[in-house]
């Protein structure tokens, strides 16, 4: 790793709380190692702000390795920044050049209100999950042996690919309609593809979609922006599968 140091200008969204009016503020930051991650660069800026007794920038993060889904950020107009297939915490400063100006904003969506600066409230996702994103099995551990039902590898692999969603919300943030169909479609698909999930498939999809609508997410008009920005490569096929499940369900329940 041949590290280099660059100087950058940052335009960052500052907003004191959910009710306050926000605005972009400008900061300059020097000597940023290109081996740093984007969030380490923000740490460096915060350290500078704290030393100047200014208020540091609030942003969400935890695992810093692309799996917890906690980090967000709209960077230069793209969810999770200019690289593909990664989260913001996996973005590295080697993607930027000396002298660059970088815009950093929170996820913007009606269903994700801003809490402070770059932090948003994504609990709508949890409520969708609570409406039906599970198999109704008690935790006795004695339902049946794990190998009792063989599952074709292809189905298991597809279910796994759908289950790889980290619930970050980039799909919603990058959709002009603020639709959550990729997120919900991934969960519905995971279960629909597995025998254990099939029993409740109908109720599940109807309940999850109802909750999704109640939370104020927009409709899907097939623009495909979600799939492009999804850090986990969740395929838009999952939306089609959910639509099929939904139609099936709506017909049988009607």
């Amino acid at each position, binding site marked *: 790793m041949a590290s280099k140091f660059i100087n950058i200008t940052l335009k960052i969204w500052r907003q004191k709380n959910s009710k306050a009016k926000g605005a972009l503020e400008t900061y300059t930051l020097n000597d940023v190692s290109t081996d740093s991650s984007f969030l380490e660069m923000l740490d460096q800026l915060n350290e500078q702000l704290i030393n100047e007794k200014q208020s*540091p920038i609030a942003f969400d993060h*935890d695992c810093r390795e692309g799996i917890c889904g906690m980090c967000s950020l709209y960077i230069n107009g793209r969810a999770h920044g200019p690289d593909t297939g990664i989260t913001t915490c996996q973005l590295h400063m080697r993607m930027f050049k000396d002298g660059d100006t970088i815009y950093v904003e929170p996820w913007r969506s009606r269903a994700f209100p801003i809490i402070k600066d770059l932090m948003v409230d994504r609990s709508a996702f949890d409520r969708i999950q609570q409406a039906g994103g599970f198999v109704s099995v008690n935790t006795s551990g004695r*339902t049946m042996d794990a190998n009792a039902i063989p*599952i*074709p590898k292809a189905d298991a692999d597809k279910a*796994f690919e759908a289950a790889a969603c980290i619930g970050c919300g980039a799909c919603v943030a990058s959709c002009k309609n603020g639709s959550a169909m990729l997120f919900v479609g991934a969960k519905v698909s995971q279960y629909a593809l597995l025998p254990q999930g099939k029993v409740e498939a109908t109720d599940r999809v109807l309940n999850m979609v109802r909750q999704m609508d109640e939370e104020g997410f927009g409709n899907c008009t097939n623009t495909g922006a979600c799939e492009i920005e999804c850090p986990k490569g969740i395929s838009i096929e999952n939306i089609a599968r959910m639509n099929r499940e939904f139609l099936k369900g709506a017909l049988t329940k009607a």
Partner: protein
Amino acid sequence: MSKLNSRIPEGPIAEKWTNHKNHMKLVAPNNRPKIDVIVVGTGLAGASAAASLGEMGYNVKAFCFQDSPRRAHSIAAQGGINAAKNYQNDGDSVYRLFYDTIKGGDYRAREANVHRLAEVSGNIIDQCVAQGVPFAREYGGLLDNRSFGGTQVQRTFYAAGQTGQQLLLGAYSALSRQIGLGRVKMYHRHEMMDLVKIDGKARGIIARNLVTGELERHSAHAVVIASGGYGNVYFLSTNAMGSNVSAAWKVHKRGALFANPCYVQIHPTCVPVHGTNQSKLTLMSESLRNSGRIWVPKKKEDAEAIRAGKLKPTQIAEEDRDYYLERRYPAFGNLVPRDVASRAAKERCDAGYGIEANDTNEGVYLDFASEIKSKGKQAAYALGDHDPSEERMIELGKKWIEEKYGNLFQMYQKITDENPYETPMKIYPAVHYTMGGVWVDYNLQSTIEGCFVTGEANFSDHGANRLGASALMQGLADGYFVLPYTVSDYLANEIRTGKIATDSPEFDAAENEVKETIDRFLNNNGSKSVDHFHKRLGLIMWNKVGMGRSEQGLKQAIEEIGLLREEFYKDVYVPGSSDEMNPELEKVMRVADLIELGQLMAVDALHREESCGGHFREEHQDSEGETLRDDENFKYVGAWEYNGSDSKQSTLHKEDLNYEFIKIAARNYK
């Protein structure tokens, strides 16, 4: 008099748990809704406990500091989960998993707990599959397994390199179901600030709503702490940024003993440190040691040339490479336990053979070239090509690797800007897991009545070294299959208690204390950031309470941490106010506890004059650099009682470990 009663049931090891379950008290279904239980933490341990207790009908309140239970640090576990299913028919059994875990822990774990863990391990896999966890499968549709360190069987179940994610999402789905049904109330972005004790019993917590800053009082008939491990005392570790010790430490301050704090697991395969602004270290899963071979150059000049950028690893001839694990431990080779592999890497780097061009030259290679070829050849044969060309083998081999470890390879590439399909990974040990934690008895109850501790936050099952893929197993075993019984047994005496009021003097006092601490930090007007102190603490810990520990170093660490604590209280600066989202305030409260803990770790490491598992005292090693245990004097759990913020004043209590069912022996992986 010792305060420690481990409450291990009588009888043969294989019958203890069953007998105990048959004789524990129960709470009738109609009484359960009258009883409140608090669960702090919703990682694998907490989510599984909260879901199970909610399902039984108790009123459960669950807390986590992240914005959703799905984000707990458990999500980051990569490699897999162990279970004694013997699906591979390679000689595995409950006994063998029990034995491997005791031996792996260097004979410093409690037999009865470990046996119970092995017994219920199979049910975990059944449970997860029933929940729709998409484990990896073979072409026949059955579950696939891999090997982990310290074992000679294949008992690890996995979902690519995202096993923790899939298991946590499974537990989260069970928890979500209970939240949806109104049986669990979830408090996300809430941090437990203190435990409230009334008449010696755990009766509730003070929590801070991290969005509004408000302090809240929550009462309960029992409190379950599932707050994870304390690896972040080193600042740099593979843990998530928010992982901390505070919930466990608050319980400790209120009277629960803290056991074996010095047992820390340093994981051999992590991406090496690259610079001073680095915020965390990234693990490359142990499962990679199934396929990768670890080496450094045999010649010092080659190592130097590599560091200077004049040679590439691929240019070093086979005979000039030192596959030091295969050389030193032929029976287990690259799959020796973590502590052994880590020390061996340090030994080579200290001797001057490290290959990373950072300040300390600390790095070794993890090389996939042989595996790519051999798996490529197999794949070609499977396709009917019995004479594949070199290129064909490499092409198919890379595809095989991608399927098994794709996300890890991508992660590595993003961090280092190097392609591990073409050149060996550079790795080095990093702090990863903490075996120590709150002391609990067989029922997972701490020395405070009604306060249970589970998951990485307790000390119970892994002795002085945890085997890979066993933390996930422990978290789920305790949450799904142990706590529902043992917490009920305790609650059976609470059915007449009635709702616990939150306007008592005990709640007033606890809330006031929290308020005072917060105000003190906010008005401190110091000059240095919280991270400044956290990094300095981490450096002391890594250099003196890290992979190699000596009497002199530990004594220095104890003094240095004491001074650091004083300076911290004088000079730390915390911006903002208490009635808003304030991440710096969250951090300062956590670092205050980490400092006290760090000092206790050094005190514990100094008192334990032997080497065992992850605890390596340089004075206690044999001529080949292997650990020398002292069973005569140290075959006990060291559990400390809190006596104020200066951890030198803590009092030691001992729980003797009796090995009735396994013959205690020197650990040998040669």
